[in-house]
């Protein structure tokens, strides 16, 4: 008996060692953002530590999404790790397409993940994708222009204040525009901003019975306020501006204020790229006094498709890339301002990170977003600037195109909302609601 047990234990042991010693090659699909490209550059460190090789498939965001969605829905099995967001994670997890990440190792410290991030990447209380970096949105503004306009930015301003300040800062002769906002159509572009903004105006996508709400007064207030403000103080061609375009406008000193992703803070304060690096202040996204602020919540996270042959190696990679040690590795090579932000509580308690000017405002913004109760009124869905149902991306992109056309002056706010309502109702009906 004893012998048999001992034998069994020995076999098990050899199996385990065999499994750990075996070097696998994992394929990772990721987006071509700066932080991921940095991760790609550090792959050697991972290979050195574990022996596993990594093949990268780096794609532009839209192509990546198309590529990984096709693969996961057909169970193509082309990738061992996919870079996905807060939108995909709960939907895919619900379908049983992702491997639960509840055993990432003893030193992973899953409780250190920011609660908002952990909630947004969990389904039924289980983590299905590990946050590589997280973001909310906030106001980035030019302190010098604000001063010149004789105004003082409060830490938590209202939309009214932002509009008035934007108009006061605008100097079209010198190509200075009070406010730069996203206008380019897309569910992850203008609709991310507008949905988050609408939350603070008391609007929502759907009521508890999944009835579309674009015919509500709150949505009309949101859209007319946005169009009016952009008309008076926005840059030309705003309807084609997404994150990138606004970033380069702000860096060139052409924007007074910019409300966008918190990760942009490190770009606009980097003196190598930004001509206004030392004149940038930060504030929470605006509200209207209804109890919700207009900021979103997003994370780029790493998930493992169910059924992959290299699950163990993939988990090793994820626990390496989203660990505290990885943050320190990046800090030692590229400086603390360049570490992937917004994922871990410990980062914001780190003495070295406290000096970073935007650190605390980023944390406050992330903490003030609630993916489970995004709007003033109750909603049947999860997600702040999106609705975590499979149909959302398609619907929101089409709605975004209507709003973008309104911003370009090709139709009125009422026409845009009417079309948005019609096409949302139609698409929801097709989906069987």
């Amino acid at each position, binding site marked *: 008996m004893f012998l048999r047990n001992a034998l069994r234990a020995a076999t098990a042991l050899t199996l385990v060692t065999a499994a750990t010693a075996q070097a696998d090659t994992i*394929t990772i699909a990721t987006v071509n953002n700066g932080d991921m490209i940095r991760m790609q550059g550090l792959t050697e460190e991972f290979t050195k530590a574990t022996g596993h090789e990594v093949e990268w498939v780096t794609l532009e965001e839209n192509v990546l999404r198309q590529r990984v969605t096709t693969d996961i829905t057909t169970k193509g*099995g082309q990738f061992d790790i996919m870079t996905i967001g807060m939108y995909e994670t709960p939907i895919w997890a619900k379908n049983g397409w992702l491997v639960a990440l509840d055993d990432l190792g003893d030193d992973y410290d899953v409780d250190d993940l920011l609660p908002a991030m952990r909630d947004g990447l969990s389904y039924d209380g289980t983590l299905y994708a590990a946050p590589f970096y997280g973001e909310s949105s906030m106001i980035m503004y030019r302190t010098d222009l604000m001063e010149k306009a004789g105004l003082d930015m409060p830490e938590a301003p209202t939309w009214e204040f932002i509009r008035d300040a934007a108009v006061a800062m605008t100097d079209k002769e010198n190509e200075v525009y009070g406010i730069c906002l996203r206008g380019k159509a897309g569910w992850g572009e203008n609709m991310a901003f507008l949905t988050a903004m609408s939350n603070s105006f008391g609007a929502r996508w759907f009521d508890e019975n999944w009835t579309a709400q674009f015919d509500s007064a709150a949505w009309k207030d949101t859209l007319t306020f946005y169009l009016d403000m952009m008309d008076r103080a926005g840059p030309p061609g705003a309807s084609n501006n997404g994150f990138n375009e606004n970033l380069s406008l702000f860096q060139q000193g052409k924007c007074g204020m910019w409300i966008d992703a918190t990760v942009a803070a490190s770009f606009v304060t980097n003196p190598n790229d930004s001509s206004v690096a030392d004149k940038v202040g930060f504030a929470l996204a605006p509200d209207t006094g209804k109890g919700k602020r207009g900021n979103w919540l997003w994370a780029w996270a790493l998930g493992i498709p169910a059924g992959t042959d290299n699950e163990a190696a993939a988990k090793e990679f994820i626990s390496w890339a989203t660990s505290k040690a990885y943050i320190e590795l990046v800090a030692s090579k590229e400086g603390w301002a360049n570490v992937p932000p917004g994922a871990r509580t410990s980062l914001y308690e780190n003495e070295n990170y406290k000096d970073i000017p935007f650190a605390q405002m980023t944390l406050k913004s992330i903490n003030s977003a609630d993916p489970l109760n995004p709007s003033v009124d109750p909603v049947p869905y999860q997600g702040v600037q999106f609705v975590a149902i499979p149909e959302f991306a398609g619907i929101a992109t089409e709605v975004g195109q209507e709003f973008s056309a309104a911003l370009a002056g090709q139709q009125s706010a009422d026409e845009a909302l009417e079309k948005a309502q019609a096409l949302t109702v139609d698409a929801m009906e097709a989906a069987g609601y």
Partner: protein
Amino acid sequence: MARAVTNQRKAINTAFAWAIGLLIFFPILWTILTSFKTEAEAIASPPYFLFFDWTLENYAVVQERSNYARYLWNSIVIAGGSTLLGVIIAVPAAWSMAFVPSKRTKDILMWMLSTKMLPAVGVLYPIYLIFIKMGLLDTKIGLVVVLMLINLPIIVWMLYTYFREIPGEILEAARIDGATLREEILYVLTPMAIPGIASTILLNVILAWNEAFWTLNLTAAKAGPLTAFIASYSSPEGLFYAKLSAASTMAIAPILILGWFSQKQLVRGLTFGAVK
């Protein structure tokens, strides 16, 4: 043309043609120039044309980030392989259409062309599912087959039109001399059709090289050609014009060079039977 042309007229022609040629070529030239600028110089206003600090740093960055050689090799194998396979299948078909025509030859040709009208996005899921079943995802052979099928109608049509221009009497003479069908194709037809086959191959290599839907959607890490390489450089965060230009230049350079060296064949051969 034997017409005497005054030098004055020739000079006007030259100036005019060069102006238009440069205008058409300008976007490519601009991309190549931008690839040697720094990111800041790439968006400078007013733009620099030639007088900037030429740098190779963008190429270094691109090379460091992605394994260009592998993408290039995949492109060569996929574009070359699909074209050769296509020609091998198309030659007999085009031969029989050209020399043993029936009432339905025209219809078959038109039908073949019409298979190209099926919108690719509409059949992505069916094809993807078939590829999973056959284990062809992310393999070069899978892409060779798909691109061959996509371009086969064009290849058949081009070869058909070249073969038709070959006088039938020569073939008949060969037949009377006792040549078998195989010999007829191999020793009589093929040598005469070489220029036509050459330009068919050229055109289809170009088409296959530039195909960006299937090559992107059916590959992952192993079989991705240069179209997948480019997809990792479009619109990242921050300034990217110079790096995008460098990647673009690397992606189009091989085919551009091939095209330039063989432009005589292209100019002479690209007729689709349009010239009688």
